[in-house]
């Protein structure tokens, strides 16, 4: 089977599975399970945003949660002030994107090397965490929205159908919206990566000096990729604020930032389906482990319930044993097992 046929087959498979999940899940599960699955879908959109920036753009961003959190906070603050969700939704995309464009401009045009990009982005999200964390007093408010510091912002009104304030989206609606968003994001990114822009950013990831000597300006392409990724993360943040009607500064924290990276590493850099599977799988595992360890548990039960420990072990295991991540490794096995060995040329 040639590469193009495999590609079409893969796309068709994702479409079928996606549509099946979209329509069957609400019929098969209770609302509480549906709520959990909704948050997996939202986080998978976030995972895709880093899959684009890091996996395809080659930009090591340790602070993807900064854009996610900015999206969530922007939506919360704008929604409390405006009361109709069209503008807050748009702002939740634009503000993280604008912030990324500004930050990215200084990083890429300032010729910051890859490692420092990671350090800077991580620092930025931790600065946001500390800043928002210390706004507990009543004097910290934007319009009628109190920032609430470490207490967060509760009671965020949910999304409504654009321009129709009274048609609010309920919990089941949130499931449909989040799942459809994930499916559309996946196919949107596939289209982007197949475009001239997408192929160019992959070339720049492979060898930015060569791209430059061919007349491409890597700084501009990286800035655009970073901004698109931030917009997506902001959108995911908006959905997340809706899902729980609540945001708190932990959204900017180290644990959240690290998780996104783990999803992408486990699933596989340079793929889109990998980070989705990594994200859903790890969240499911986290939830399952947490549920099995009641407070006061001892011995094995306490060990298995120690989620950060388990996540750390998974990360180390993958980095050492499956460095490419799940999907590329399985893809590699497929070609070893099923592709007949041919000579140098076909």
């Amino acid at each position: 089977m040639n590469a193009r046929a495999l590609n079409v087959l893969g796309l068709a498979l994702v479409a079928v599975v996606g549509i099946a999940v979209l329509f069957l899940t609400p019929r098969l599960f209770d609302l509480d399970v549906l709520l959990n699955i909704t948050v997996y879908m939202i986080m998978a959109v976030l995972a895709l945003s880093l899959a684009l920036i890091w996996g395809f753009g080659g930009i090591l961003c340790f602070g993807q949660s900064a854009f996610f959190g900015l999206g969530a906070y922007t939506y919360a603050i704008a929604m409390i002030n405006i009361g109709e969700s069209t503008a807050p939704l748009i702002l939740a995309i634009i503000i993280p994107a604008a912030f990324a464009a500004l930050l990215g401009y200084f990083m890429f045009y300032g010729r910051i090397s890859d490692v420092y990009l990671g350090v800077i982005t991580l620092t930025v999200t931790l600065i946001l965490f500390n800043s928002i964390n210390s706004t507990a007093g009543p004097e910290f408010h934007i319009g009628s929205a109190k920032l609430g510091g470490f207490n967060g912002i509760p009671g965020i009104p949910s999304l409504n159908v654009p321009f129709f304030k009274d048609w609010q989206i309920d919990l089941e609606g949130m499931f449909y919206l989040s799942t459809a968003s994930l499916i559309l994001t996946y196919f949107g990114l596939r289209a982007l990566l197949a475009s001239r822009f997408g192929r160019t950013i992959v070339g720049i990831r492979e060898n930015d000096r060569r791209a430059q000597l061919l007349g491409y300006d890597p700084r501009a392409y990286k800035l655009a990729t970073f901004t698109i990724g931030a917009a997506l993360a902001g959108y995911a943040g908006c959905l997340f604020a809706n899902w729980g009607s609540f945001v708190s500064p932990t959204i900017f924290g180290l644990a959240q930032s690290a998780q996104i990276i783990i999803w992408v590493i486990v699933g596989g850099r340079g793929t889109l389906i990998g980070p989705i599977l990594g994200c859903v799988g790890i969240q499911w595992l986290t939830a399952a482990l947490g549920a099995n360890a009641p407070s006061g548990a001892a011995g094995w039960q306490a060990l298995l319930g120690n989620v950060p420990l388990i996540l750390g072990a998974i990360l180390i295991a993958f980095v050492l044993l499956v460095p490419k991540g799940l999907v590329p490794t399985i893809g590699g096995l497929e070609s070893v097992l099923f592709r007949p060995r041919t000579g140098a040329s076909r």
Partner: protein
Amino acid sequence: MTVPLIETRGLGMRFGGVQAVRDVNFTLGERELRCLIGPNGAGKSTFFKMLTGQLKPTSGVVLVRGVDVTDAEPHEIARRGVGIKTQVPSVFDGLTVRENLWLATARMHRGAQAQRAVETMLERVGLSAIASRVVGQLAHGQRQWVELGVVLSTNPDLVLLDEPAAGMTDQEVLRTVELVRDINKTKALIVVEHDMQFIRMIASKVTVFNQGAVLMEDDVEAIMHSPIVRDVYLGKKAAA
């Protein structure tokens, strides 16, 4: 007087206490072919890096068709029609041969036109048979051809070749000579090469670099018979 394709005036590069290139005045006309020779460390590669914007000279200027590009970014110089094949092949290792050539072509051509240009170039550099292979898995010689194809795909007016025959078999060297002659029908070239046989075959004017400065500039036969050049370069090489 016509404006030269590329010109440097008083070009110099200092790395800390080391003067790698000093006061180079160099001129190349449209469709001219020039070879650069000189012992290792003579400043040839540094000179190439300054011509392509990869290094900013510490003194002097670089002009492309009379436009000062001394402080320009590498991509801006590339867009003015300067292409370079580096000494160690610089290609997109994770991509296929076809994708490599497409990236070089796509800056100027779109859609079906780009596809056609890629297929034509695959044919020209003899890579059609391995077009779907990932470049990182190819042999060194093949990667050299991929890079040549990539550089030519941008349709530059000036092609810089840094040791194009290095690591090639005798047969491949002959093909490279043919290709250089073919390229030279429409484009100017500067070729850095150690192999005097190669230089004789392409029979060009030669500029000799020594200790960062231009030692001599003449045709290939005169260079080969010059006692000064023999002393600094050929003599050492013959003894080695």
